[in-house]
């Protein structure tokens, strides 16, 4: 069928760039308007293989000119649904680039197309041949499409008229994707870009957890893994749910084990204290446990002062980074603050006690209303004492925890010290990493000794007064 077209079709032409000197016309693009849109329709609404042209066709265009350009594809089929629109739409980019002499860039209302002089000389004098080729590719490559009809528009008024409808469609889609969560997918993505300096880092990207550097979301991971499954971003089958609350999955644990060369075999995606995500060094924000108030503070790289614990970002980042799993510190991407699962295993926002002002402002829309003014910034407090007072004064939910703990402590004294089995992890290579111990109950300390011989006559553990 391909031989009917006045051009060649091959993925080989995908990287082909049409330079200004070689171009016959430019369509849409940064200096004009246009869009591309795929619409799922009912079977009866689509005339299969039909092409509609609104506005001047190629032969009516002036050489070297620039024209507005919109492409609308109506697709139908038993399996066609709205959710597939964006996936099909993305293929328009690929398929148009398969056509020799046609360059397609960007997406949605930013599309930018150029047609070469050579292509026009070879007989591409109507958009019909292009649209027919694309429709053929749609049906060949995406067999769930049973019927497809194309409308290309070069009439500016008509495009402007339809632009609002297109934008509403894009927005509806974005709202849907924003509502995608870990439980809705069966694949997460991993990234190894940081392993050059953090060899045991295991970056797991899920719909509810952006990469630590803040650059790669689940959709980016999916797009990259599809193009190059062996590349730095790759699929992680989710496996079975071990614990949904803390975000522990068999697939993630297996990947953690292989990526960290056996260093870590459990990662809880939405946990701060127990088996947290590893921290590379690229993270935008570091979270730190403050034992004195049993809360968590967050500091980003743009904050140059010291956090209430007396440490600046750089010091804490140095302790946290390197691909280690360190209870008490956690590197994250800023967008993770927007996740509904944000450290939910440890109380989520109710556990957050301090953030720099500019960071708090940046994510303010996503902080629950009832807690927002209870989180201190550098404008409110300067050290642990003032932080403690601030939290008490604002009646931060963390204060309830203190009360509970005090009660527990009172009863604990009479109990056997079993419960004190602490849960802090101290990597042998980084003895300075030990975050301060939680004062009681929650968390605790875990000490891992590697290749150690220990002989002890007597051990006395006392509470530090």
């Amino acid at each position, binding site marked *: 069928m391909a031989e009917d077209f006045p051009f060649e079709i091959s993925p080989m032409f995908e990287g082909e760039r049409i330079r200004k000197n070689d171009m016959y016309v430019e369509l849409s693009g940064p200096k004009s308007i246009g869009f591309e849109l795929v619409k799922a329709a009912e079977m009866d609404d689509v005339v299969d293989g039909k092409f509609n042209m609104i506005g001047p066709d190629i032969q009516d265009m002036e050489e070297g000119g620039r024209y507005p350009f919109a492409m609308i594809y109506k697709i139908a089929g038993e399996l066609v649904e709205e959710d597939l629109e964006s996936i099909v739409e993305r293929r328009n980019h690929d398929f148009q680039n398969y056509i020799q002499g046609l360059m397609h860039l960007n997406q949605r209302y930013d599309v930018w197309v150029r047609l070469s002089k050579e292509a026009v000389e070879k007989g591409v004098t109507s958009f019909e041949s292009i649209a027919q080729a694309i429709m053929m590719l749609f049906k060949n490559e995406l067999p769930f499409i049973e019927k497809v009809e194309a409308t290309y528009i070069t009439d500016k008024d008509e495009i402007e008229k339809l632009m609002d409808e297109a934008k509403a469609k894009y927005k509806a*889609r*974005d709202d849907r*994707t924003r509502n995608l969560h870990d439980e809705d997918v069966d694949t997460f993505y991993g990234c190894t*870009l940081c392993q050059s300096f953090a060899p045991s880092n295991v970056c797991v990207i899920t719909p509810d957890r952006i990469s630590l550097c803040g650059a790669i979301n689940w959709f*980016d991971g999916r797009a990259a893994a599809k193009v190059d499954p062996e590349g730095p971003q790759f699929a992680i089958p989710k496996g079975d749910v071990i614990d949904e609350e803390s975000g522990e999955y068999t697939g993630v644990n297996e990947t953690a084990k292989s990526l960290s060369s056996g260093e870590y075999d459990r990662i809880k995606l939405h946990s701060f204290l127990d088996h947290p995500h590893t921290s590379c060094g690229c993270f935008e924000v570091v979270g730190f446990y403050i034992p004195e108030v049993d809360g968590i503070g967050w500091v980003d790289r743009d904050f140059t002062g010291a956090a209430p614990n007396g440490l600046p970002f750089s010091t804490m980042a140095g302790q946290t980074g390197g691909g280690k799993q360190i209870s008490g510190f956690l590197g994250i991407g800023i967008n993770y603050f927007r996740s509904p699962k944000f450290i939910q295993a440890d109380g989520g926002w109710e556990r957050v006690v301090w953030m720099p002002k500019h960071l708090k402002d940046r994510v303010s829309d996503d902080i629950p209303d009832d807690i927002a003014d209870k989180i201190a910034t550098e404008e409110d407090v300067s050290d642990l004492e003032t932080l403690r007072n601030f939290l008490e004064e604002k009646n931060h939910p963390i204060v309830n925890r203190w009360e509970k703990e005090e009660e527990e402590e009172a009863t604990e004294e009479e109990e056997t010290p079993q419960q004190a089995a602490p849960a802090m992890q101290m990597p042998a290579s980084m003895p300075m990493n030990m975050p301060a111990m939680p004062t009681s109950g929650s968390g605790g300390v875990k000490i891992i000794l590697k290749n150690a011989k220990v002989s002890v006559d007597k051990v006395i553990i006392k509470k530090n007064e």
Partner: protein
Amino acid sequence: MTKIIAITGKGGTGKTAITTLLLRHLTKSDKVVLAIDADPDTNLPETLGCEADRTIGDIKEYMMNERDNMPPDINKESIFESRIYETLNELPDYDLLVMGRPEGSGCYCYVNNLLRGIMDRLTENYDVVIMDMEAGLEHFSRKTIRNIDDLLVVTDGSRRGMGTAERISELVHELETDVRNIHVVANKVTEDNKEQIQKTANELGLKLIGLVPTDESIAERDLAGEALYDLPEDSKAVIEVERIAVKLGL
């Protein structure tokens, strides 16, 4: 096959002038040429006599700053690619791309990884890519451009300039980039220092591909802030750079 030529050297040795004259030679043939200014202290557009208002550095910042505002499932690579094509300066004889400012704080791993793929695809569209680079070879180490065919290290006659040339050669080996050939170009050569330059080069084991004589017309244009691209045919520097180009098979 695209031939990729990079020009580097200590500041003030005249690498941008040599780049400009090589480009001048290239555009006289019907080759499709991409010039890249990879020096953060962007000089190439000026010596070429054109303007560059936007740079890859600006686009990288845009990608960093806007990433959380973009629709979640939007294809970032295709936005990035389109923006880079927008910054391409499409001139009648060649295209010009300016790398521009260095990176800010934060992690650019992902952005640079995307950039590598985009640059690979872009450069394939040209017969020759010619790149003016800073001595620190930052873009080498980031591998935003891979597989350099010929690296020209420009030096003046000074021992220090030659020393830089030697260090750059060593650095290239350390960086494990794929550089096929390294050549040294002596610039601002006079009758008086010619012998000494050759002697120093021999001592340091540097291969000299050409000795570009001091050309008063270049100094005059530099002072006046005029372009070097349209120097006359009979300029001494133009003649020597054309000889170098022939040796490089351009």
